[in-house]
Each structure stands twice: as C-alpha cells, then as structure tokens.
C-alpha cells in the first residue's frame, strides 16, 4: 500500500548515499494519516506550509500530500491541488447523483462569466476597462453577483482622475474553477487558436443561460 514519494523534481539516489529525507516507513505512514485528517477536516485548501508543523520530523509536506493524492485516486473523495493548497473534492462522476440532494446554486449568466474572464486575464482592472473590452456596460447586478460569490475583490484604486476601484480575482475563484494558480489559465494566445471554429459557441456550456 505504501508508496515512496514520487517527486519527479527530486530524483532520489537509488541506494546508499544519504537521501536528504527518506523518512522511515512508519513515520511516513503516520504523516499520510495526519495529512488526510487535516485536509479532510478543513474547509479551505491546506497549504504544505500549514501541514508541515504537524508532521513527524523528516517528512516533507508536499511529498506527503502528493503521495496522499496518489493514494486517494479513484476514491469517491479525491485529493486535488487547488488555490495554492490541497483539498478533498468529490469525484466528478458522482455529481449527477449528489445534486439530487445537495443544493446547487444557479450558474452565472453569460455576462457575469465574461466579466469574470476579463477580470481574470486583465487584473487588476477597473470597471471602465471591463466595459471597454466587452463593448457593453457592466450592470451593478453582475458585479454584485461576482462579489457575493467571493470570486472577485477590490484591490486598490487606479491612480487616475476619480481613482476608480481596481478589481482582481480571489483564491475562492481558483477554488471555484479548480485552478492551482492563475498561471493554470490558458495562455491568451491559446484561447483563440482555430479562427473558424472558435469557442464554438460563446454561451455554450451554459444551458441555463
């Protein structure tokens, strides 16, 4: 059951030598248990830094978390890396059954999704700049919906006349879309690769819109 850490960035010496930290199996097993319990109990992603002090000496938090993720693969509740930490998430294939009893919020309308995408790619960005890109005015309702879901937050003011608020995405945004970091977003150049069949339908994938 127990696996050695599989950290590709750290090819550990095959034998002999003195691998920096190859903790004894019992300690590593305990580390896995502690990590699972801590991440399971938490309602926010647990960073390696948060886990580290809890672990037995010689266990490196990220190694433990990655080993745990591998061990949990295929379980109904899997460990995923998100928003700078690790969190348990239900397996996507179970969603149809779960949504029969778990309440699911309304999906964001197209205008809100576009606004969110613009904030994600242009942050920090003012409301006027968002409107400029969309070529349409931004309704208060849309802004409030994004704020209420905790997906965006003000981040300072732009030093121009009127000092308009600058908007940026939050860690909650990363969690919502299962991103480890903003750098997980597709690069801008990749967004429109096939000019003729671009994003087949803006507003697709949103059957409720």
């Amino acid at each position, binding site marked *: 059951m127990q696996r050695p850490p599989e950290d590709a960035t750290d090819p550990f010496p095959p034998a002999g030598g003195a691998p920096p930290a190859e903790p004894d199996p019992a300690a590593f097993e305990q580390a896995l248990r502690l990590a699972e319990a801590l991440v399971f109990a938490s*309602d926010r992603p647990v960073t390696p830094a948060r886990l580290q002090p809890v672990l037995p000496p010689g266990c490196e938090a990220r190694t433990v978390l990655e080993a745990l993720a591998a061990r949990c693969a295929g379980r109904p509740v899997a460990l995923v890396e998100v928003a700078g930490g690790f969190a348990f998430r239900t397996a996507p294939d179970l969603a149809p059954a779960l949504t029969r009893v778990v309440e699911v919020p309304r*999906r964001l309308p197209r205008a809100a999704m*576009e606004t969110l995408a613009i904030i994600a790619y242009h942050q920090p960005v003012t409301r006027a700049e968002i409107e400029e890109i969309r*070529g349409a005015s931004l309704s208060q309702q849309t802004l409030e919906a994004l704020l209420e879901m905790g997906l965006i937050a003000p981040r300072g003011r732009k030093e121009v006349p009127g000092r308009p608020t600058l908007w940026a995405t939050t860690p909650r945004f990363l969690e919502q879309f299962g991103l480890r970091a903003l750098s997980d977003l597709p690069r801008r150049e990749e967004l*429109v690769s096939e000019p003729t069949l671009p994003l087949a339908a803006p507003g697709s994938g949103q059957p409720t819109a």
Partner: protein
Amino acid sequence: MSEAARTAPPALHLTLEGFEGPLDLLLELARAQKVDLQAISIVSLVDQYLAVLEQARAVRLEIAADWLVMAAWLAWLKSRLLLPEEAAPDEDAEALAGALTDRLVELERMRAAAAWLAGRLQLGYEVFARGAAESLTVQDRSGIAADLPALLQAYAAARRRALARRPYTPKPRRLWTVQEALARLSRMVGGLPDWSVLQRFLPEGLADPVERRAALASTLIAALETARGGGVELRQDRPFGPILIRRRLEKPDAKAA
C-alpha cells in the same frame, strides 16, 4: 438568442436584443465572414453593421445611442478607408481599423476564456468540498485582555463614582491656635540671632493651603502679641512685603525709654 442568430446569419438583422452592444454584433458579423479575425474586411463589416441597424430601425425606431454612435463612427471609418492612397489621414484610418480588429480579437479571446471557465468542473456544481468543516481549534481563554490604561481608567472611574455617591462632609480642620503659635514663637525666637521671615515659625507639615493660611494668621497674631509685650520686633519694608521678626535686643530698650 445569439445561438439562434448564429445558425441563421441572414436573419441577424431581425433584432438587436440578443446583443450586448455594438461590439458584440460586430464580433458576430466578423465571425460570419468565416475567416481569421485578423483578416476580416472592415469595409464589408461596416456595410453589414449598417444594414442590420437599418433593418432594426425599420422594426423599432428607438435604438440606443451607442449603436448609432458606432454606426456613425464606422461610416466615417469606411469613408476614410475608401479614400485614395494619397489622402493624408489614411494611416490614421488604417490604425483605427486595426484597433477595431484588436478589440474584436480581445473580445473573442475573453469569450473563449469565459467558455473555458464554464467548461471546468466547478466547485459546488460538479465537484463538492467538505460540507461542514471540523474546527480543529481550541480556544485558550487563560489569557487576560487588560492593559495599564484600562487599569488606570478603572481606578479613576471607581474613585469618581465612590466620591460622587458619598454625601459631602466637610473635613474636620486641624487649626493652629494663637496659643500654640505663641508657644512655638517664644520657643523658637530665642535661637534666632537676626531677622527671620514670619513663615519660619509655622508648624511643619502643613500641606493643606487653608490650614497653612490659618496657621500664618495665628502666628502673625502671636507675633504682634509678643511684640506688644516687648519680646520681639517686627518689620515690614513695604506693603505686602515679607514680615520679618527678631528677638528684641537690649539696647533699643534705652531708646524706647
């Protein structure tokens, strides 16, 4: 709405309601050209836009100002683009056309980004987090939130309150009688060779100003009394100046006589 529009491009002009603004419509028209956005013909785009707007006007007279502003701007842009090469402001028109294309490309990108996001497995829709987190924290309430200012404030408040509640009772005064002043003066004056200020003969430790003034008055009376009896001499060089006192010397006796 836009979905229907896309499947039947010629019917685009039926309404503008499905579009979020002129740029939205322009992007849709550009897409209908089925070429790379970078290679679209701005001139044909302008014609299509104006045509759609014209149709919309036929249906409904009221069209929001931003649609008309865009129409006017596009018409101007088209005229510039069609002018012969030698006309000076051509470069401007090219740049403006390029800027419009850039805006359309950016909008297209953001649409794609929105679609990409919408296609993710979203928390609370396709995947779920722990519904009720366990709090693995324990509150240590052994510490005390109190600092020195709070302590001092408490003391002042307690005293003020206690004093305000207490009925006023005048403090019994310890007054220095003339008899006491006489006794002290006669005891002390013998040891003083020269003039001394009256205050030196006050009892010690009088902090209360009232008691001090009373003692001063008693001592002055005692001094006057003693001077009348010939025991001491008093002197005051100017009004309100210090009152000086000394033992009466023998010699002036004769003078007095």
